[in-house]
């Protein structure tokens, strides 16, 4: 009888925490979650340099990266990192960030103690950590699992 009441008490307390915010109808889907990142093959027409860069990346993705498998342990991948870095800063700084990222990618030592992980098992390494703007850096400990959109 004691166990019964303990069970009821425990279930009441545990379920109470869900209700610390008002919630409504959830739009859940029966469908399976598909982890297949679709490439953005669009062209960046902001200026000529960006157009050339995006075209080169599109070609690299189509002819090489999508065919040689998943070789980057990071998320975003090195090529995506380069693209985001150039868009955020400029071509010179973006290139420096890319070379630094490539060095870290080549590092075969234990990454689990350094980087948080994304749900799909890659290591989370976003560009805002490397723009030399300390205020933008949001530190995440290695044990954290990051949810991406």
């Amino acid at each position, binding site marked *: 009888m004691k166990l019964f009441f303990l069970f009821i008490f425990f*279930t009441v307390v*545990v379920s109470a925490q869900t209700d610390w915010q008002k*919630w409504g109808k*959830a739009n859940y889907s*029966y469908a*399976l979650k*598909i982890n297949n990142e679709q490439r953005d093959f669009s062209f960046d027409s902001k200026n000529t340099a960006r157009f050339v860069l995006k075209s080169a990346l599109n070609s690299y993705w189509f002819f090489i990266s999508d065919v040689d*498998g998943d*070789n980057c342990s990071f998320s975003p991948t090195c090529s995506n990192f380069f693209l985001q870095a150039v868009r955020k800063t400029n071509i010179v700084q973006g290139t420096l960030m890319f070379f630094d990222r490539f060095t870290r990618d080549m590092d075969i030592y234990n990454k689990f103690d350094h980087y948080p992980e994304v749900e799909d098992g890659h290591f989370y390494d976003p560009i805002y950590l490397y723009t030399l703007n300390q205020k933008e850096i949001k530190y995440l400990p290695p044990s954290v699992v990051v949810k991406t959109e």
Partner: protein
Amino acid sequence: MKIPIAFFLSLIVFSTANLFAQNEFAKEFIFATKLYNEENYYDAVTECKRLVFFDSDSQYVFKAYILMGKSYKMGGKFSDAILNFTNAELNAKTSGEVFESKIEIIRANILRRTTDRALQLLDDLDKNGNFSSRTDEINYWRGWTYIFAERWKEAASSFSKIDSCEQLQQLCMQVEKDKYSVTFANLISHFIPGAGQIYTGNYVSGFLSLGWNILAGYVTINSFAADRIFDGLVELNFFWLRFYNGNIQNAQKFALYENQKISNKALNYLQFQYNGTKP
């Protein structure tokens, strides 16, 4: 004559008093149900909790827990739903109510995708002699559990035991037939680079993969043949093996992806177009 009349009159009075008390709980339950029907699930849970708290005779406790569980289920909070359905089961007074609460627990487990637990509960229901007349319902939910566990063949087999579920049986059999074999895709990619990807319908990727492997192989063998061992090793490791492994990875990835698409097509049909009872 006078005493029976007095007794009869007093009975009316006491019944009215009691009826008034029961009417309050009934009104409260109707109010909670109204909130549920208006999709105001949080407040529906509040009113059910109120009912459970005050209903010391437990007249409405079972119904209140069932309604709470359904509200949590509609809010996507399946673990909380299961807790409340379990409470309903503990407060069930008839075997019908026990069965109803167990089925609700199973349905919430299906949606939560804890299908092993759902299957275990269904097996327990099967073994329970009290529910031998409800085998069709048990097999129906077993079929749904197998669907959510991606075991379409077993789902078809479960539905085949129910006369009125031919449509579901056909659907499951079709999905099983349409799916690609991940093992086969993986295996043929080991022998012919790109074959696994072509098998799953990704022709461009497959032929590109084949082309790169041929080129890499030619360059590597050429280097070894020309006694440029170091060059050959570098080309083997960073060129040929890279594209060869990539071909195997892609074969597996595409097979899984295509299978997920096939499953999702069926699951979307079941969620939005199928008219029968759903989890």
